[in-house]
């Protein structure tokens, strides 16, 4: 029963599902273990195919999981634990890439594209409106209702 209680690992909100943590690795302190799981989900198993060390049953992943827990027990913060592994294994170990000069394009690509899209749509709309303004009189509620009925009748 003691072993069972010890082994009870609970995944907290939005943590990735996992397979590979073995009962003997789990820390006694539930809060520390939860932090270890969250950190593990963000670290890549270097010899696997796009798996976090939390998901992988490879030996290396097991070693890394144990290192993470050792560092946490030694009192490191989450950032310090990750930095410890980056120092040894390189940035490749981080599944969530850091923001830096070499990743600025990666992080900014989506927002910049969205901004360009919004500006393009807005400019196209303005150009069109200037060329041919839509009739100023808005349809009445009854007209809109009739339109919707017409659409449902299959036109």
């Amino acid at each position, binding site marked *: 029963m003691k072993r069972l209680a010890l082994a009870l690992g609970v995944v907290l909100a939005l943590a990735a*599902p*996992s397979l590979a943590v073995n009962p003997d690795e789990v820390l006694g302190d539930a809060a520390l273990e939860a932090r270890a799981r969250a950190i593990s989900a963000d670290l890549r198993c270097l010899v696997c195919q796009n798996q976090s060390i939390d998901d992988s049953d490879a030996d290396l992943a097991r070693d890394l999981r144990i290192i993470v827990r050792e560092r946490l027990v030694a009192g490191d913060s989450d950032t310090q634990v990750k930095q410890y592994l980056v120092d040894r294994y390189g940035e490749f170990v981080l599944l969530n890439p850091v923001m830096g000069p*070499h990743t600025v394009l990666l992080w900014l690509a989506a927002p910049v594209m969205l901004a360009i899209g919004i500006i393009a749509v807005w400019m196209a709309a303005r150009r069109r409106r200037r060329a041919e303004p839509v009739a100023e009189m808005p349809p009445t509620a009854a007209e809109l209702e009739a339109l919707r009925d017409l659409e449902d009748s299959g036109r």
Partner: protein
Amino acid sequence: MATGGLGQLMSIELGHFALILAFAIATVSAVVGLALWRANGRAAAYLQQSAILQFLLVAAAFAAVAQAFATSDFSLALAFNHSHSAQPLLFRITGVWGNHEGSILLWVLILVAMGAAVAAFGRNLPRDLLALVLAIQSLLTAAFAGFALFTSNPFARLAPAPFEGRDLNPILQDIGLALHPPLLYIGYVGFSVCFSFAIAALISGRIDAAWARWVRPWTLLSWTFLTLGIAMGSYWAYYELGWGGWWFWDPVENASFMPWLAGTALLHSALVMEKRNALKIWTVFLAIITFSLSLLGTFLVRSGILTSVHTFASDPTCGLVILAILAIVIGGAFLLFALRAGSLRAGGLFAPVSREGALILNNLLLATATAAVLVGTLYPLLLDALTGRSISVGAPFFELTFGSIMAPLLVILPFGPFLAWKRGDLVAVAQRLALAAGLALFATILVFALRGVGISLVPVGLLLGFWVAFGALADLADRAKLLRVDLATSFRRLFGLPRTAWATAIAHFGLGVAVLGIVATSAWEVELVTTMKPGDIGRISGYSVLFDGIAHSEGPNFTSDAGRFTIIAPNGETRIALPERRIYAASGMPTTEAAIETYGFSQVYLQLGEPGADGGTVVRVWHKPFITLIWLGALLMAFAGLLSLSYRRLRVGAPQPARHSTAAAE
């Protein structure tokens, strides 16, 4: 087998010859079609016959390979490398596409099947458009049949023929392999028809609402199958890979997800074009992009750039040739687009607040989401190639970027179907959706009252899921005038609604359901990792899991250690679960087969780990609340696609018969 030997020898070589012939005919057809598409329908008639002939020839080639696999004819090198006579018949046959060469052959088979379908169902099309579309399909067939023949030929032989094969990768020996690749490929390759229509529009310079109607069934068909293929792949990974995850943001998954996102955008923009004759250039652009992403997906998976369970070992020349095809097809398409897009005239006008406006917003967000996934997938490859620096872009990155683009999309989604074309009234729509919004808020608060309150993104996700689902129901209720007219009239209206209205509501409802499943299972999944001996009991989320013991057994081509567990549900119901550890005889490869028990929408997932030192066995148990909603939502979306596809007036395509059927129906 003695007489069969000669017969098979013949049929493998005949199959090879059929593929060569298909390649030759496709090449000639592409040239003839592109040169003579204006020539008064004669080219179209020839190309129709050619398309059907190409299909028959590739089908014969495929059948030859399939027969060699089914009869374990290991003189076919492909069968020797990827099959074993002890495998059940189903896995011997599905093994045909469980490898690089065979999956390319399947790709080509579906490509020519699509071409033949265009030829068969395209009688309503203008002859010159039909000729152009078929010519471009033939061009694609020539490229990929050529690729199959010259760099990844499935017909290579071995002499003397080995007595036994090397076995199919055990992970692939599953019903999933029978369904996932064909569904996915029908989706991928189906978009080639949309692509061909887009190129035909650019070449001929003619594009209008009728074009959108002709393309619509192909977009719907491809999108539906891609939805099913991705959902099937996700569920397969969930139960087979054994760690209970259902989406990993793996580059290969992203490769199938990008065409889906772009295809979803295409589905919506084609709607604007069909009804309002607007967004033409953008729709053509999306049609090109969607198929380009399908090709990119094929390239990423088949080139060996990525390593995953999907990438069967293949030599680098394959990758280079696919890259060349990719560059020519995509580059050519965009060059044509740049040169000719100006000749396509813009259509109907509309105010910013309108159905068109909402659909543009939909497209903007879906396109951004596609771009985000594309950048995230390719960035590490490019950075490594250019600077030699290795970084990882994994699930945490995609969840953040993709999630923050999807959230606003889910917020605006319910408004779309309520808005009128051309000019809508946002205040009136908001009033009509107030009840749905109130219900969504109430449901979210109710769930949290029952589950306990925590500070996280979970309530936001739940609210969005409920909002989208209730918004879709509100759309149906509003169209039926529920509570505004008497109930009988409402029901009559409800069932008299066009199937497209139903399809829209069901697809959007399905998306809401999937979002709820994703949020619920991420938030409340519980895991138990423990060492158990026979007689031990584990407790998880109110379920008791009793370990009875392990039994050894022999399968057809594997040996198995099956754990026997008794699961006692909170309501007292008992079930037996048998998770297995298998060793496949031919390859010596171990696999785990999880046991999954479904309770309502939730599942208990059991996985048998390694035997421990003290005679116990490592057992991993998860309770995954509402996880089946994810795939149920996807199935609803696919069902909506089929429903819309079955709508005769749209399937027929040509505007003239549509009017007749309306008149008949009214």
